[in-house]
């Protein structure tokens, strides 16, 4: 991997970033700011508590559970048990697109359900109101499934959402009701919610329907949430290559698909952080191996398709995959050829999510752009350094409280899709079965890796590196743009997309070209404000400038 020499001295940058903090805070943040070396991969402090008051990008456990993992499945009635806000804020804001099979088919994604907990429910308990709400949802809609999500006060007052769910499930008989203890305070970020969601989906949904779908090459797509239509593009490619998608976790998905997921022969994982638990548990219980793939980036998509074909080991599939790649790539290349002269040599920073900050680096490299600093909002060390560090990760008090399901092989349904020998052979061919190398291996030497970046650090990084584009979320969007730097939202895609697959890559190239070369950035200073020394190009934040 080539070294990139124009970077500021990262050790000095790190010192700069923490110098304003109180001593204890500085000491803590120092461990989360790391100078990358793809050869040795230094340890990053991750998945630890955020310092109160530091201004973090992070959200809560509930957001990870309801918002991320369960939200995209269209035919579940998701009732949020708590005061109104939690349900309101997660109402349609994540852009999980979905395409019901028919105009009449169930789709509750546009709805927001809440028990709208009042003071009396906090004082005297909210279970009665919850059960009433479940009953009303059942009477109104007769859905296949109702899921209950606990918000902060629920855990504290001791409402038992699991017992209430079971009671109603038994009462209805034809509606699967289940609950999640995903109170906002659990864990240290959204990440706890992902894990809790994985556990609940695994316990209450997967394995309920043993019908084996037709198709030779059947897989599940894990950690793809169909933001901006990403899953549609992947579905299109699968269809073209003859790959059968059994279930998606959970973009554009249905309850039926997920209940049937254990009949697939492979799990491919996009967002490792949010769904790796599911891959692991399905491997143990049903014998389905999982493989990390990446459909963000045209080359990455091609590579991932080849990996899948290699896994199935079928010559016809391999040929079809090659044919599709050969057909799709010229269109991609034409767009790159047009755009790359305008993006080549520019720099990007990505501080977002638990996997996107890694994946999107592929798209930037396809444009000839360098990622100079990156970090995740809620990832763990394995997402940075690779899964080989897993055994060494200390379980702290915050993680300890998140349930680890004890999963064993299903006496009837366990069926190893590949023998040990076959898996070894695949690994020898370079296929990373049940593994993930993490973000840092792909980043250049001396780039900066920052976990749970604070607001202060991000503004300072912009001042120091002056990147051409910054990738984060809605809270950061207009702050960074006020500094004259375009910000690409990688949660909502600025309401564009899709960005996956071959079509998505082209969308992304065009969007980045438009953003970094937009004439508006040259209009910021009025003609009478432009200083002779060209100081109008300085990037400033009011309180970080020295």
């Amino acid at each position, binding site marked *: 991997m080539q070294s990139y020499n124009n970077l500021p001295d990262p050790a000095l940058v790190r010192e700069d970033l923490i110098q304003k903090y109180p001593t204890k805070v500085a000491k803590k943040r120092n461990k989360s700011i790391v100078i990358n070396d793809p050869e040795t991969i230094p340890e990053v402090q991750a998945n630890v508590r955020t310092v109160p*008051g530091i201004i973090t990008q992070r959200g*809560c456990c509930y957001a990870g559970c309801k918002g991320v993992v369960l939200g995209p499945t269209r035919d579940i009635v998701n009732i949020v048990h708590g005061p*109104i806000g939690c349900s309101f804020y997660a109402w349609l804001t994540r852009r999980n697109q979905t395409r019901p099979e028919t105009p009449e088919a169930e789709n509750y994604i546009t*709805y927001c359900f809440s028990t709208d907990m009042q003071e009396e429910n906090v004082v005297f308990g909210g279970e009665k109101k919850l059960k*009433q709400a*479940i009953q009303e949802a059942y009477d109104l809609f007769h859905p296949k499934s109702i899921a209950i999500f606990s918000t*902060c006060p629920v855990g504290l007052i001791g409402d038992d959402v699991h017992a209430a769910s079971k009671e109603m499930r038994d009462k209805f008989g034809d509606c699967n009701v289940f609950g999640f203890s995903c109170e906002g305070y659990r864990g240290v970020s959204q990440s706890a919610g992902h894990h809790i969601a994985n556990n609940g989906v695994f316990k209450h949904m997967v394995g309920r329907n043993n019908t084996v779908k037709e198709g030779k090459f059947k897989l599940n797509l894990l950690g793809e949430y169909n933001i901006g239509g990403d899953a549609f593009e992947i579905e299109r490619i699968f269809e073209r290559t003859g790959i059968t998608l059994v279930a998606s976790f959970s973009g554009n998905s249905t309850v039926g698909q997920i209940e049937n997921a254990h009949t697939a022969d492979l799990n491919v994982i996009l967002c490792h952080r949010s769904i790796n638990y599911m891959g692991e548990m399905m491997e143990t219980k049903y014998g389905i191996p999982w493989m990390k793939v990446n459909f963000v980036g045209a080359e990455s998509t091609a590579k991932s398709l080849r990996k899948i074909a290699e896994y199935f080991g079928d010559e016809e599939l391999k040929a079809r995959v090659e044919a599709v790649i050969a057909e799709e790539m010229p269109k991609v290349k034409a767009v790159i050829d047009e755009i790359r002269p305008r993006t080549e040599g520019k720099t990007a920073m990505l501080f977002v999510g638990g996997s996107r900050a890694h994946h999107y680096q592929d798209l930037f490299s396809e444009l000839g752009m360098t990622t100079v600093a990156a970090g995740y909002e809620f990832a763990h060390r394995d997402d940075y350094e690779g899964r080989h560090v897993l055994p060494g990760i200390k379980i702290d008090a915050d993680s300890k409280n998140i349930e680890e399901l004890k999963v064993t092989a299903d006496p009837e349904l366990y069926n190893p899709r590949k023998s040990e020998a076959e898996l070894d052979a695949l690994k020898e061919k370079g296929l990373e079965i049940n593994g993930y190398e993490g973000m840092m291996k792909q980043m250049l030497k001396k780039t900066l890796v920052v976990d749970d970046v604070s607001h202060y650090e991000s503004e300072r990084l912009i001042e120091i590196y002056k990147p051409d584009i910054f990738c984060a979320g809605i809270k950061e969007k207009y702050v960074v743009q006020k500094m004259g730097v375009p910000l690409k939202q990688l949660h909502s895609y600025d309401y564009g997309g899709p960005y996956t697959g071959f079509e998505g890559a082209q969308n992304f190239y065009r969007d980045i070209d438009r953003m970094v070369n937009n004439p508006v950035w040259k209009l910021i200073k009025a003609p009478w404000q432009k200083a002779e020394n060209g100081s109008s190009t300085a990037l400033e934040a*009011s309180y970080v400038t020295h």
Partner: protein
Amino acid sequence: MLLRHTTKEVKEREGLTINPAKTCQPIGAMYAALGIHGCLPHSHGSQGCCSYHRSTLTRHYKEPVMAATSSFTEGASVFGGQANLLTAIETIFSVYNPDIIAVHSTCLSETIGDDLQQITKKAKDDGKIPEGKHIIYASTPSFVGSHVTGYANMVAGIADQFAVSTGEKKNQINIIAGWMEPSDMREIKRLSTELGVKIVLFPDTSDVLDAPQTGKHEFYPKGGTTVEELKSIGDSTHSLALGCISAEPAAIALEKRCKVPFETLDMPIGISATDRFIMALSQAAGVTVPDEITADRGRLVDIIADMEQYFFGKKVALFGDPDQLIPLTEFLLDLNMKPVHIVSGTPGQRFEKRMKEILVRAPYANFKNGLGADMFLLHQWIKNEPVDLLIGNTYGKYIARDEDIPFIRYGFPIIDRIGHSYFPSVGYTGGMRLVEKILGALMDRQDRDALEEKFELVM
């Protein structure tokens, strides 16, 4: 259909809220605190609250919304959040150096019984508040009221914790802004200047949430009511509270603390409510209304008279927040329109009473607020009695599309259009903007649906 499961038949619900016409208290407190100059709002709860509130406000304003959080974990939830808040205060003053931290509570901190008065006092006693800096707080439990209540509570907290009575009256009038847009606050200030009245407007989010692009991020933008101004409100001659739900609690707090007499007015939206505002302000200050304002009023009346045929009898469904809905409904009646369905998730007898007074002129109207008053119910009402126009926040677009109704975005949040933060809807000029929007929506519809031979050139 986007809302394909919404039935025409209305069934009473007691447990389930569907598609709420409100959100929770803390976001209102955060918004109010942004209207103080040099203030950093602080959310005492889990990280998600702060993140959600910042995200929603950011989507609404397309502006930076800075706020911090106590980042509760399970431990803090069990043992109390005092340690988290104290750490937060220290970190915030070291790194972000605000003049004021405005702390609001959340359902979590309220449920475990954290006492913000006690914790902020401890912070002061422990020397964690630097010289010349301030910390204020408001109790904003999410399980009581709505986002509007949270706004009212923070504004009351601001009044109560800053106002000083020196014994010497100042020739100025407090205008307590109900939850309105920065553009509206700017317009209130402009009207006061035109009247020649010295006012202190608080809170004031103009020049905060409509900041210009300068190439520099001002963490504490130029706008916001200053601490000095806030201290002086105890010496003002009067307070005018613009909104009985979102502004009056602050006026009451101020009367109690500094004996400043107050009058509560409807938010000045539309002709009648603006008339009352101009009358009240000019009388309180003892000034005569200048011709410019009378001319503005005349222009609004002129437009309405010129275009009266397009308003007449048009049925309107609206949803949103009390202090907007009250004068807006009145304005629709002044326009000779028919407000037939009105819904607000915000509870309160005060609101109900005022709406009933307004709706004497519209005995046919369906009105519901508080628990069970959600957009699902509104949609069902619309299915039973269709309307010509829908007015409300962005979430209304799903109903509007399904039912093919002209739709005007008004209220909070508006996350799919711009304009609300730049162009006022209060005052006579604000009335002109509303009228333009209403006419635009109705006449575009007429143009769209007209038979070719009935397609009008002049309207």
